[in-house]
């Protein structure tokens, strides 16, 4: 095999591995970020844009990170004109649908950071889906 063919074979096998992996993942996440808070604060929020690339529902059931004592799925709700938060045990991503975690709505509640997080730093949060799938996502700390 000439080296060009070898590169070609490598490329082909690489290409065939990547789609298989993301198809298995089924969910893509982008624009993942955490709002920087003053040092010593125990509650932070993580936001992201999720997309279900499969034709069946996907369920986010938990999240965890070595950077925090615990991570919970929360939603800000309005109750009698006041904002409050509810804890969700899972969130459904509709087939081929998108779901945004954004200020004032769904967010990951990040409790007790193990170190002070500065803008620009990444923090990995593992998103766990029903069926055992875990996707690690790098969240960027932003001002």
């Amino acid at each position: 095999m000439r080296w060009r063919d070898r590169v070609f074979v490598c490329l082909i096998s690489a290409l065939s591995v990547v789609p298989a992996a993301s198809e298995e993942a089924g969910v893509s996440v982008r624009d993942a970020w955490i709002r920087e808070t003053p040092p010593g604060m125990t509650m932070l929020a993580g936001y992201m844009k999720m997309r279900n690339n499969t034709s069946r529902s996907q369920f986010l059931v938990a999240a965890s990170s070595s950077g925090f004592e615990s991570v919970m799925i929360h939603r800000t709700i309005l109750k009698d004109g006041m904002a409050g938060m509810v804890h969700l045990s899972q969130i459904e991503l509709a087939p081929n649908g998108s779901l945004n975690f954004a200020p004032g709505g769904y967010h990951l509640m990040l409790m007790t950071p193990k170190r002070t997080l500065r803008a620009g730093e990444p923090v990995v949060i593992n998103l766990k889906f029903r069926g055992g799938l875990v996707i690690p996502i790098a969240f960027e700390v932003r001002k």
Partner: protein
Amino acid sequence: MYRTSLKFCLMIATVALAAMLAGVWLAEIYRQHDSRAMLLPDRVMTLFPEPKPLTAFALTDDKNRVFDLASLKGKWSFLFFGFTHCPDVCPTTLAVLARTRDIIARNKVGADNIQFVFISVDPYRDTAGKLRQYVEHFDTSFVGVTGDNAQIGNLAAQLGATYQVAITPGLENYPVYHTTAVFLVDPRARSHAVFTPPHDAEAISRRFKVLRELAAGNAT
């Protein structure tokens, strides 16, 4: 037949010309009264027809100084009720208010006669030191304020804010509910306007600029 269609054409032309002139005239009126047109009730701000004078209350600021009715006099105050263990709504709103202040500060009149006050409804966890550390992260000029429940309730009720602190024994992260509106108090310590969420720095600062100009015009 020809005469009828000519007449008709003339009529159409006249109507079109009138409409154009009306448009130009309306645009001019709008330009002149831009400031007032902007103060019509909208989704961003509710302006009270009669500003409501606030009455005495007694709170403490983040440097353990008294924060009372006198603290609201002589400057415009943006007030927001929240708590520091609030991961979503409070940091989002304070970040918007910090941008609002930046925009106003760039304006000719500036932001010297304005204060931004974060009132914690959770005095059990939010000590003066914690409040100071929290608010100055967003803007060093921001003031954190809290006090006993009766006094927070007193000011909240006067402004039309509501909150609920559901302290639960054994639960460290008890739920807290609070109004997410931002209240604007004028330099005579009168409840002047309310900004309703979702908050946007451009929208708030634009309306505030007009309000302040109008108030200055009324005062002279």
